[in-house]
Protein backbone atom coordinates (compact mmCIF):
# COMPACT_ATOMS: atom_id res chain seq x y z
CA UNK A 1 0.00 0.00 0.00
CA UNK A 2 2.78 2.38 0.95
CA UNK A 3 4.64 1.52 -2.29
CA UNK A 4 1.56 2.44 -4.38
CA UNK A 5 1.23 5.80 -2.60
CA UNK A 6 4.91 6.55 -3.22
CA UNK A 7 4.54 5.75 -6.93
CA UNK A 8 1.65 8.19 -7.27
CA UNK A 9 3.78 10.98 -5.77
CA UNK A 10 6.29 10.51 -8.60
CA UNK A 11 3.53 10.30 -11.23
CA UNK A 12 1.86 13.50 -10.00
CA UNK A 13 5.21 15.33 -9.82
CA UNK A 14 6.01 14.37 -13.45
CA UNK A 15 2.56 15.49 -14.67
CA UNK A 16 2.83 18.81 -12.80
CA UNK A 17 6.25 19.51 -14.39
CA UNK A 18 5.02 18.55 -17.87
CA UNK A 19 1.70 20.41 -17.73
CA UNK A 20 3.02 23.60 -16.10
CA UNK A 21 6.05 23.70 -18.44
CA UNK A 22 3.90 23.23 -21.55
CA UNK A 23 1.18 25.72 -20.52
CA UNK A 24 3.76 28.35 -19.51
CA UNK A 25 5.47 27.98 -22.90
CA UNK A 26 2.17 28.21 -24.82
CA UNK A 27 0.98 31.22 -22.78
CA UNK A 28 4.27 33.10 -23.06
CA UNK A 29 4.59 32.43 -26.82
CA UNK A 30 0.99 33.53 -27.47
CA UNK A 31 1.27 36.72 -25.39
CA UNK A 32 4.64 37.73 -26.85
CA UNK A 33 3.23 37.17 -30.37
CA UNK A 34 0.17 39.33 -29.64
CA UNK A 35 2.38 42.05 -28.09
CA UNK A 36 4.78 42.08 -31.08
CA UNK A 37 1.92 42.23 -33.63
CA UNK A 38 0.16 45.03 -31.70
CA UNK A 39 3.42 47.02 -31.65
CA UNK A 40 3.82 46.49 -35.43
CA UNK A 41 0.26 47.74 -36.08
CA UNK A 42 0.84 50.75 -33.82
CA UNK A 43 4.03 51.71 -35.69
CA UNK A 44 2.27 51.16 -39.06
CA UNK A 45 -0.59 53.53 -38.12
CA UNK A 46 1.76 56.33 -36.97
Amino acid at each position, binding site marked *: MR*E*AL*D*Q*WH*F*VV*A*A*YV*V*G*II*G*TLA*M*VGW*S*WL*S*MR*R*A*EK*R*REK*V*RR*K
Partner: protein
Amino acid sequence: MIMHIFANPKRFLGLATWLTPLLLVVGLVLTAGALTYGLFFAPADRLMGDTVRILYIHVPSAWLGMGGWTTIAIASLVELVWRHPLATIAARAAALPGAVFTAICLITGSIWGRPTWGTWWVWDGRLTSMLILLFLYFGYIALAGAVNREGASSRIPAIFGIVGAINIPIINRSVVWWNSLHQPPSITMGKSAIDPAFLWPLLIAMLGFSCIFGGVILARMRAILADIQTEARLRRKALSA
Protein backbone atom coordinates in the same frame (compact mmCIF):
# COMPACT_ATOMS: atom_id res chain seq x y z
CA MET B 1 9.09 24.03 -54.74
CA ILE B 2 6.42 24.50 -52.07
CA MET B 3 8.83 26.25 -49.69
CA HIS B 4 9.33 29.10 -52.20
CA ILE B 5 5.59 29.83 -52.07
CA PHE B 6 6.07 30.89 -48.44
CA ALA B 7 9.13 33.03 -49.12
CA ASN B 8 6.68 35.92 -49.13
CA PRO B 9 6.01 36.85 -45.46
CA LYS B 10 2.50 38.08 -46.37
CA ARG B 11 1.59 34.65 -47.73
CA PHE B 12 3.10 32.97 -44.68
CA LEU B 13 1.13 35.25 -42.33
CA GLY B 14 -2.08 34.50 -44.25
CA LEU B 15 -1.59 30.82 -43.41
CA ALA B 16 -0.14 31.22 -39.90
CA THR B 17 -2.93 33.56 -38.72
CA TRP B 18 -5.52 30.77 -38.70
CA LEU B 19 -3.16 27.80 -38.31
CA THR B 20 -1.55 29.00 -35.04
CA PRO B 21 -4.71 29.01 -32.86
CA LEU B 22 -6.02 25.88 -34.62
CA LEU B 23 -2.86 23.87 -33.84
CA LEU B 24 -2.75 25.14 -30.26
CA VAL B 25 -6.43 24.38 -29.53
CA VAL B 26 -6.34 20.92 -31.21
CA GLY B 27 -3.04 20.17 -29.45
CA LEU B 28 -4.29 21.21 -26.02
CA VAL B 29 -7.55 19.21 -26.41
CA LEU B 30 -5.76 16.04 -27.62
CA THR B 31 -3.07 16.33 -24.95
CA ALA B 32 -5.60 16.96 -22.16
CA GLY B 33 -7.59 13.90 -23.29
CA ALA B 34 -4.53 11.65 -23.55
CA LEU B 35 -3.09 12.77 -20.20
CA THR B 36 -6.46 12.39 -18.42
CA TYR B 37 -6.76 8.87 -19.83
CA GLY B 38 -3.13 8.11 -18.97
CA LEU B 39 -3.51 9.36 -15.41
CA PHE B 40 -6.90 7.89 -14.47
CA PHE B 41 -7.95 5.14 -16.92
CA ALA B 42 -4.86 3.49 -18.47
CA PRO B 43 -3.83 0.23 -16.79
CA ALA B 44 -0.79 0.03 -14.50
CA ASP B 45 2.19 -1.90 -15.82
CA ARG B 46 2.94 -5.40 -14.50
CA LEU B 47 6.55 -4.47 -13.61
CA MET B 48 6.63 -0.67 -13.27
CA GLY B 49 3.24 -0.28 -11.63
CA ASP B 50 1.65 3.19 -11.79
CA THR B 51 4.92 4.93 -12.71
CA VAL B 52 4.30 3.79 -16.31
CA ARG B 53 1.84 6.72 -16.54
CA ILE B 54 4.86 9.06 -16.77
CA LEU B 55 5.32 7.56 -20.26
CA TYR B 56 2.56 9.83 -21.67
CA ILE B 57 4.57 12.96 -20.82
CA HIS B 58 8.14 11.69 -21.02
CA VAL B 59 8.08 10.06 -24.47
CA PRO B 60 6.36 12.94 -26.38
CA SER B 61 8.72 15.48 -24.76
CA ALA B 62 11.77 13.35 -25.73
CA TRP B 63 10.43 13.08 -29.29
CA LEU B 64 9.88 16.85 -29.52
CA GLY B 65 13.20 17.70 -27.85
CA MET B 66 14.91 15.87 -30.71
CA GLY B 67 12.30 17.17 -33.21
CA GLY B 68 13.15 20.75 -32.22
CA TRP B 69 16.82 20.33 -33.09
CA THR B 70 15.96 18.48 -36.31
CA THR B 71 13.79 21.49 -37.26
CA ILE B 72 16.70 23.85 -36.46
CA ALA B 73 19.11 21.75 -38.58
CA ILE B 74 16.75 21.53 -41.59
CA ALA B 75 15.85 25.25 -41.43
CA SER B 76 19.56 26.13 -41.09
CA LEU B 77 20.38 24.04 -44.15
CA VAL B 78 17.57 25.74 -46.14
CA GLU B 79 18.89 29.11 -44.95
CA LEU B 80 22.46 28.37 -46.05
CA VAL B 81 21.63 26.67 -49.38
CA TRP B 82 18.54 28.52 -50.65
CA ARG B 83 18.71 31.69 -48.49
CA HIS B 84 15.01 31.32 -47.76
CA PRO B 85 13.92 34.43 -45.79
CA LEU B 86 11.73 32.51 -43.35
CA ALA B 87 14.23 29.69 -42.67
CA THR B 88 16.29 31.80 -40.24
CA ILE B 89 13.10 32.79 -38.40
CA ALA B 90 11.87 29.16 -38.30
CA ALA B 91 15.19 27.96 -36.83
CA ARG B 92 15.13 30.67 -34.15
CA ALA B 93 11.46 29.91 -33.38
CA ALA B 94 12.08 26.17 -32.87
CA ALA B 95 14.78 26.71 -30.24
CA LEU B 96 12.49 27.66 -27.32
CA PRO B 97 9.94 24.79 -27.60
CA GLY B 98 12.78 22.36 -28.31
CA ALA B 99 14.64 23.44 -25.16
CA VAL B 100 11.45 23.35 -23.03
CA PHE B 101 10.54 19.82 -24.17
CA THR B 102 14.12 18.61 -23.65
CA ALA B 103 14.07 20.00 -20.10
CA ILE B 104 10.66 18.37 -19.44
CA CYS B 105 12.02 15.07 -20.81
CA LEU B 106 15.08 15.21 -18.52
CA ILE B 107 13.09 16.17 -15.41
CA THR B 108 10.27 13.64 -15.93
CA GLY B 109 12.86 10.97 -16.81
CA SER B 110 14.70 11.68 -13.58
CA ILE B 111 11.41 11.50 -11.62
CA TRP B 112 10.63 8.19 -13.35
CA GLY B 113 14.15 6.84 -12.72
CA ARG B 114 14.01 7.21 -8.93
CA PRO B 115 11.24 4.63 -8.24
CA THR B 116 12.15 2.42 -11.26
CA TRP B 117 15.97 2.34 -11.22
CA GLY B 118 16.52 3.51 -7.63
CA THR B 119 18.42 6.62 -8.73
CA TRP B 120 17.58 10.11 -10.03
CA TRP B 121 20.44 10.14 -12.53
CA VAL B 122 23.09 7.95 -14.18
CA TRP B 123 25.77 9.14 -16.58
CA ASP B 124 24.84 6.69 -19.33
CA GLY B 125 24.68 7.34 -23.09
CA ARG B 126 20.98 8.22 -23.37
CA LEU B 127 20.75 10.58 -20.39
CA THR B 128 24.08 12.27 -21.05
CA SER B 129 23.42 12.84 -24.77
CA MET B 130 19.99 14.29 -23.90
CA LEU B 131 21.62 16.65 -21.36
CA ILE B 132 24.11 17.69 -24.07
CA LEU B 133 21.12 18.45 -26.33
CA LEU B 134 19.76 20.84 -23.66
CA PHE B 135 23.15 22.59 -23.46
CA LEU B 136 23.22 22.81 -27.28
CA TYR B 137 19.83 24.56 -27.15
CA PHE B 138 21.16 27.04 -24.55
CA GLY B 139 24.20 27.66 -26.76
CA TYR B 140 22.05 28.16 -29.86
CA ILE B 141 19.65 30.57 -28.09
CA ALA B 142 22.58 32.59 -26.69
CA LEU B 143 24.37 32.63 -30.07
CA ALA B 144 21.25 33.69 -32.01
CA GLY B 145 20.58 36.44 -29.44
CA ALA B 146 24.18 37.69 -29.70
CA VAL B 147 24.02 37.69 -33.52
CA ASN B 148 20.81 39.77 -33.37
CA ARG B 149 22.31 42.28 -30.94
CA GLU B 150 25.71 42.63 -32.60
CA GLY B 151 24.43 42.44 -36.19
CA ALA B 152 26.82 39.57 -37.04
CA SER B 153 26.19 37.04 -39.81
CA SER B 154 23.17 34.78 -39.26
CA ARG B 155 25.25 31.99 -40.82
CA ILE B 156 27.04 31.42 -37.49
CA PRO B 157 24.00 29.99 -35.63
CA ALA B 158 22.98 28.17 -38.84
CA ILE B 159 26.32 26.33 -38.96
CA PHE B 160 26.04 25.61 -35.22
CA GLY B 161 22.53 24.20 -35.84
CA ILE B 162 23.77 21.83 -38.55
CA VAL B 163 26.87 20.70 -36.63
CA GLY B 164 24.81 20.13 -33.46
CA ALA B 165 22.54 17.73 -35.37
CA ILE B 166 25.25 15.06 -34.98
CA ASN B 167 23.84 14.58 -31.46
CA ILE B 168 20.40 13.43 -32.74
CA PRO B 169 21.46 9.99 -34.12
CA ILE B 170 23.71 9.59 -31.05
CA ILE B 171 20.66 10.07 -28.76
CA ASN B 172 18.59 7.72 -30.91
CA ARG B 173 21.17 4.90 -31.03
CA SER B 174 22.69 5.42 -27.55
CA VAL B 175 20.64 2.61 -25.93
CA VAL B 176 21.79 0.22 -28.67
CA TRP B 177 25.47 1.22 -28.74
CA TRP B 178 26.13 1.37 -24.98
CA ASN B 179 24.99 -0.50 -21.88
CA SER B 180 22.25 1.52 -20.26
CA LEU B 181 19.64 1.41 -17.51
CA HIS B 182 17.35 3.03 -20.07
CA GLN B 183 15.21 0.56 -21.99
CA PRO B 184 15.90 -0.05 -25.71
CA PRO B 185 13.59 1.58 -28.31
CA SER B 186 9.99 0.30 -27.91
CA ILE B 187 8.64 1.91 -31.07
CA THR B 188 10.56 1.55 -34.33
CA MET B 189 9.50 2.03 -37.95
CA GLY B 190 6.20 0.17 -38.31
CA LYS B 191 6.76 -1.94 -35.17
CA SER B 192 5.86 -1.54 -31.51
CA ALA B 193 6.76 -3.60 -28.45
CA ILE B 194 4.16 -1.68 -26.42
CA ASP B 195 0.78 -3.21 -25.60
CA PRO B 196 -2.10 -1.41 -27.45
CA ALA B 197 -3.59 -0.39 -24.07
CA PHE B 198 -0.53 1.86 -23.57
CA LEU B 199 0.24 2.54 -27.23
CA TRP B 200 -2.96 4.33 -28.30
CA PRO B 201 -3.03 6.98 -25.57
CA LEU B 202 0.72 7.43 -26.13
CA LEU B 203 0.21 8.05 -29.87
CA ILE B 204 -2.59 10.55 -29.13
CA ALA B 205 -0.38 12.32 -26.56
CA MET B 206 2.44 12.47 -29.14
CA LEU B 207 0.06 13.92 -31.74
CA GLY B 208 -1.31 16.46 -29.24
CA PHE B 209 2.12 17.60 -28.04
CA SER B 210 3.29 17.78 -31.69
CA CYS B 211 0.37 20.12 -32.55
CA ILE B 212 1.28 22.30 -29.54
CA PHE B 213 4.90 22.28 -30.70
CA GLY B 214 3.84 23.37 -34.23
CA GLY B 215 1.54 26.07 -32.83
CA VAL B 216 4.28 27.46 -30.58
CA ILE B 217 6.77 27.54 -33.50
CA LEU B 218 4.24 29.47 -35.63
CA ALA B 219 3.51 31.89 -32.74
CA ARG B 220 7.25 32.47 -32.20
CA MET B 221 7.75 32.98 -35.98
CA ARG B 222 4.94 35.54 -36.07
CA ALA B 223 6.45 37.37 -33.07
CA ILE B 224 9.97 37.43 -34.59
CA LEU B 225 8.59 38.53 -37.98
CA ALA B 226 6.53 41.31 -36.36
CA ASP B 227 9.62 42.52 -34.44
CA ILE B 228 11.70 42.58 -37.66
CA GLN B 229 8.98 44.50 -39.55
CA THR B 230 8.58 46.99 -36.67
CA GLU B 231 12.33 47.62 -36.50
CA ALA B 232 12.54 48.05 -40.29
CA ARG B 233 9.66 50.56 -40.30
CA LEU B 234 11.12 52.54 -37.38
CA ARG B 235 14.51 52.65 -39.14
CA ARG B 236 12.92 53.87 -42.40
CA LYS B 237 11.01 56.56 -40.49
CA ALA B 238 14.16 57.68 -38.68
CA LEU B 239 16.04 57.94 -42.00
CA SER B 240 13.30 59.92 -43.74
CA ALA B 241 12.82 62.31 -40.76
